[in-house]
């Protein structure tokens, strides 16, 4: 019984040991797992990879520990050995405890009893070796590291990098193994020779090629194919040349953007690939500029007469020729002459390459430029495109050689006012000056005031004389020659008059007319005498025109002008008397009259034009209507919808998206195909915008592709097709309404109240 118990105890000890060690190993393994998982997470997002590496690490650590603790080899013997080693009290006899009583010899029995007692007393104290604390700390460290590292792990985006996918994988065509698919598609691009670009193999079926490139497609099919075509937008389908039963090839020169599709016939079934774009890079015209000159340059003859022109010329593939076109213009007006010359750059001598700094020194003398002449020039360049070069030119630059001998007449409007103020002042100006004089009276001396007033009176006189001319007052002195005429008058005056009492001649007109008949001079009074007889000698005498009649004006204006001159006399009188205040009312009146005269004397051009003959009343509205009959015209003209299939497809796609349907019926697939045809028209013009849509429609029309692909296609196609739809102008529509009995009653009552 006791033996049994001891064996049980040993057994339980062993179990405890195993348990402890297993726990340790588990903790180590988990710590290793976490650490490995977190570390691989830094480099990869693949769950399988991370998990695999972590599990492997965990297992390795566990195995290592297992071997280290020799757990697989742990049996009773090893355990007993351990007890013997660690507990000398058992006197190396612990193995006896496991033996059956009956098999023991007496000595062994003796020893057994002893050992048993020892063991029983030792049992509660037996401490099995363990490193549980160590393993727990390793585990905790592992957990901490795990959280630390995963926090820093990069967040990998969910979308796959499409660049990694080989383009050729897209050209599978059909998943059916019996139907031929494209095994290999090689596209060689041979750019035109002038571009000096090397032929290359396209990396993707979407091509970006220089204009005029030769594109060669070589297709290898998986099985025998009867016929293969390449469909290029805007062209017929081009049959591919059959090299052998599997290999086809075609070479085409491409100069317009568009898209293409490979189509092949196999077992009477036509399969076509996805759409791929062909984007043509147009050969650009050369880009030219002149840096060192302004567009207009003027040189004087003394300057150094040579101009250096520096020009930068650029082209995408290379330049073939460049020159300066210079035109010399000589002379002016109608006698201008032009001479055109083509000059070549001094450096470089030969135009070649993509980027050129051209320079030329133009000797203006050599070009025959003389003072007054002008030189126009521009730089032009051709690139190396064949067969027709691209051409470009700069703006025209001007170089003018100053002609210093030519006199220039400058009319400066502002100067006259200051230089000749006394010559002519308007009535308004005189008024302004008079008012100013009155205002400044206190500030100036009496003499100054008087002198200014007198000057104004003189101005008034000049004005009066000027207007007097219009009235034909010939006898008045010429304007500006007043002084001279005064002297002349003086010279002709009699000595008596000169030294006697002489009236102020200026004011003579204002004086009451002398009743006496003037003994000398012409007698004009006869004309005013109605009773005077006609003088038969009149025709033979020197007789002036009557100043009353010979004016430029009609009677009423003449009267007004006369009145104006009269008040001008008064105005002048008061100014001369140094009394501008009293002169002002006359001046105002004069101004008013002058204004009226100027308004009345405006000349209007008589309107000329077609004067229709007067209508005969009886002929009006009496045309011959016998051939005008009642007529009826009928037309049915409704603007046709441009994109019927696209419109239907939009509704179908919307319905499929909202009901999350993926499968499409054959009629729906046909609709997708029709929409694709409509979209293809647009894609020719803008392949970049609509080509994706074409590919998506192809997926939908063929019903191939998995769920995610179709879903993606539906969303993409919805967006693209919406963009296709044009915005039509608003049209009036018939609106629906429901006429409830109450509405009818309401309207009727409304009407009756209105009538009331």
């Amino acid at each position, binding site marked *: 019984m006791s033996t049994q118990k001891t064996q049980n105890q040993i057994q339980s000890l062993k179990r405890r040991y195993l348990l402890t060690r297993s726990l340790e190993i588990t903790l180590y393994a988990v710590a290793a797992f976490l650490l490995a998982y977190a570390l691989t997470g830094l480099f990869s997002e693949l769950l399988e990879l991370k998990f695999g590496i972590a599990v492997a690490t965990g297992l390795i650590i566990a195995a290592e520990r297992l071997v280290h603790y020799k757990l697989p080899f742990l049996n009773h013997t090893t355990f007993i050995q351990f007890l013997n080693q660690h507990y000398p009290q058992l006197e190396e006899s612990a193995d006896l405890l496991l033996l059956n009583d009956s098999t023991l010899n007496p000595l062994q029995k003796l020893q057994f009893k002893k050992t048993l007692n020892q063991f029983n007393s030792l049992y509660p104290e037996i401490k099995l070796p363990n490193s549980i604390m160590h393993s727990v700390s390793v585990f905790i460290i592992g957990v901490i590291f795990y959280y630390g590292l995963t926090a820093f792990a990069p967040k990998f985006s969910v979308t796959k990098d499409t660049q990694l996918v080989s383009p050729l994988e897209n050209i599978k065509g059909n998943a059916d193994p019996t139907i031929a698919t494209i095994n290999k598609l090689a596209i060689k691009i041979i750019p035109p020779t002038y571009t000096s670009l090397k032929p290359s193999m396209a990396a993707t079926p979407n091509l970006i090629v220089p204009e005029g490139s030769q594109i060669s497609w070589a297709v290898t099919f998986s099985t025998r194919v009867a016929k293969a075509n390449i469909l290029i937008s805007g062209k017929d389908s081009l049959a591919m040349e059959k090299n052998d039963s599997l290999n086809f090839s075609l070479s085409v020169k491409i100069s317009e953007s568009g898209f293409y599709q490979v189509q092949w016939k196999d077992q009477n079934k036509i399969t076509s690939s996805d759409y791929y774009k062909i984007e043509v890079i147009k050969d650009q015209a050369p880009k030219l500029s002149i840096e060192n000159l302004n567009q207009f340059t003027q040189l004087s003859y003394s300057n150094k007469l040579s101009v250096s022109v520096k020009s930068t010329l650029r082209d995408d593939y290379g330049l073939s020729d460049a020159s300066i076109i210079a035109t010399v213009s000589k002379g002016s007006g109608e006698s201008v002459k032009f001479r055109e010359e083509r000059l070549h750059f001094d450096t470089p001598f030969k135009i070649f390459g993509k980027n050129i700094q051209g320079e030329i020194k133009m000797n203006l003398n050599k070009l025959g430029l003389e003072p007054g002449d002008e030189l126009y020039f521009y730089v032009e360049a051709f690139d190396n495109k064949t067969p027709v070069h691209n051409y470009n030119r700069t703006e025209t630059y001007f170089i003018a050689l100053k002609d210093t001998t030519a006199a220039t007449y400058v009319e400066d409007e502002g100067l006259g006012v200051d230089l000749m103020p006394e010559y002519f002042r308007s009535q308004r100006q005189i008024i302004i000056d008079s008012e100013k004089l009155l205002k400044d009276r206190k500030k100036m001396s009496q003499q100054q005031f008087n002198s200014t007033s007198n000057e104004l009176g003189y101005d008034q006189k000049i004005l009066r004389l000027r207007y007097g001319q219009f009235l034909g007052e010939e006898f008045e002195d010429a304007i500006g020659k007043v002084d001279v005429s005064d002297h002349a008058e003086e010279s002709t005056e009699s000595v008596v008059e000169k030294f006697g009492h002489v009236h102020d001649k200026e004011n003579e007109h204002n004086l009451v007319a002398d009743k006496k008949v003037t003994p000398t001079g012409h007698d004009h009074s006869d004309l005013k005498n109605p009773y005077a007889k006609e003088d038969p000698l009149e025709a033979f005498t020197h007789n002036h025109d009557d100043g009353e009649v010979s004016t430029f004006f009609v009677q009423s204006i003449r009267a007004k002008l006369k009145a104006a001159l009269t008040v001008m006399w008064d105005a002048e009188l008061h100014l001369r008397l140094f009394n501008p205040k009293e002169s002002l009312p006359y001046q105002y009146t004069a101004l008013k009259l002058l204004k009226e005269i100027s308004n009345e004397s405006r000349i209007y051009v008589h309107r000329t034009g077609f004067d229709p003959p007067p209508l005969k009343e009886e002929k009006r509205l009496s045309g011959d209507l016998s051939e005008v*009959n009642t007529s009826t015209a009928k037309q049915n003209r409704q603007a046709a919808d441009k994109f019927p299939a696209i419109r239907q497809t939009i509704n179908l796609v919307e319905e499929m998206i909202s009901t999350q349907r993926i499968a499409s019926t054959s009629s729906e697939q046909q609709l997708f195909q029709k929409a694709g045809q409509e979209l293809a028209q647009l894609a020719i013009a803008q392949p970049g915008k609509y080509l994706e849509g074409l590919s998506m429609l192809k997926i939908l029309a063929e019903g191939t592709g998995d769920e995610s692909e179709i879903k993606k296609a539906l969303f993409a196609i919805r967006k693209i097709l919406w963009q296709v739809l044009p915005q039509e102008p608003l049209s009036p529509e018939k609106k629906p309404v429901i006429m409830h009995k109450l509405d009818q009653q309401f309207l009727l009552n409304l009407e009756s109240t209105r009538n009331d």
Partner: protein
Amino acid sequence: MIRTEVIFQPIFPMWSILVGATLLLMFLIWKEANRKSRFLTNRIIAVLLMLGSITAWLLQPMTITLKDSSSIILLTKNYDRNKADSLIKKYPSYTLLKEYDAAAYKNSIELMPYALVDHKDNIAFILGEGLPYYEQEKIASSYSYFPSKLPTGITQLNLPEPVQVNQTASISGTANIHGKTTLILEQPGGSKDSVVLTGMGIKSFSLSSETQQTGLFRYSVVLRDSLTSKVEGYLPVEVTPHKILNILFVQKYPSAEVRYLKNFLTEKGHALAIRSQISKNDFHYEFANRESIRIDRLTSESLSEFDLFIMDTESLHALSASELKSLERSVTDGLGVVVLINSIDPKRNFPLLNASFQVYPHDTVHLQIKNQNIALPALPVSISSRLSITPVTTSTTRILSGYRHEVAGKIGFQLLHETYRLLLEGKITEYASLWSPLLESIARLKTESFKIKIKNSFPYYQDEPLAVQVISAGDEPKLKTNHTILPLQEDVLIDDYWHATTWAGKAGWDSLTTQDSSTLHYYVSPDNEWTTLRIANQQRQHFANQSNLISKKETSLTTDHKPISPLWFLMIFLLASGFLWLTPKI
């Protein structure tokens, strides 16, 4: 005063359970008594407990809390705890009920969703987001409502009515914002319109998008602020095919204005009949997109074919008395008349329009159409009428085109001349926006037999009841949804006004149809869309239904059913059986 009672809801008949349990108990006690082991009393107690727990589980006991109360305070989701505290302090005798999704509150009893009807007469206060409208309708008492704070988002939304293709679908509403926010209206083809709202609180907005395609579409409204960009929800837009008009033109002499208008309308597919006088007795008739018809004399019969009658001033003056009478009669029946006013003779009475014209100093108008400044000649008069004129095109100072109602029809006028210049300049959109609104608003309306409406405010969610209204023009409607006929009930007070209730199905488009195929398409939103709008709707309805008078005084008994968790029984069973298993080993 609170009383708690326990009731049972046995799985099997109660007598069978009790008999079975008693027999089993006796057998087990006998077995235990015969077992030679210690703790006999304890074991028998354990057996009793064990069987008792099984019996209790089978009987499904339930506690009923009976509470005498005068009124109820109902706590709904996101209620304001401070307000609840204050209310309870003021009305300590009130019963506190809480909705299942509201936060716990001391002494509150959870209200089972079906039990609201039991308390319909006693609810005095409602706190929080409130109840959906169909729950609100159950409440019979007058109550006060204390709303919770509104989250950001759209709080009110006026959905676009079904629009005809190429017309503009507009939405308007209000949004609750916390700072600068951009609202974007997105079509399936991409963003169409956006508006930037600034400030805080409730701001109103309106967005519009021109439609290009008929069908049922989901536009979306995106709310973008400085931190987030969230899709508020999908906006159902129904675009119906365009319905053509039957138009009659009568003109005294052929004019370019009518010619270009005719071409424009013909291309849009409208059916046109044109009569132009070319001499005293000769006319030129044109028919576009329709069969020919006699229009040499205007009679009520011939006019009844048309939706719109366009004529010039001279033709109007030239109408005979009988023709004018027929025209007036047709207008009262719904015909729309547009007079292209070329000249005004102040001495002559202007028939039909019943308006007077005053001389206006300018004969040119500058209009702003579609962000384009356009100058057009217009008759130098301004119109004034005793009857109210609805303007369609206006300059800053006068009405250029408009109409007035005449019973069921409308009589309109156009003062603008030479609008065809716009077409010649290639401004077809501007030309269309000058004419289409005028013709559309005046044309005869399409009378329908039935009109279906849903009374609930948008959004509708799955399994929510929808109150459907049908207005009929006389016939008895038959309403169908997904091949199921909905029973309709006529309004007690108003004839031809019918009600029905249906329940919204799965998220997506759905429809209701009457026998004449009048259809109402409606959109059922997924639960996670338009959350703010839903709360705002509930709150608005609560405010409309609440009354601030608390007049409830009668006491009533509130009951609250709460099942006792079977977990307890399981634990007792485990303990008892564990003890029985253990005793022999001790």
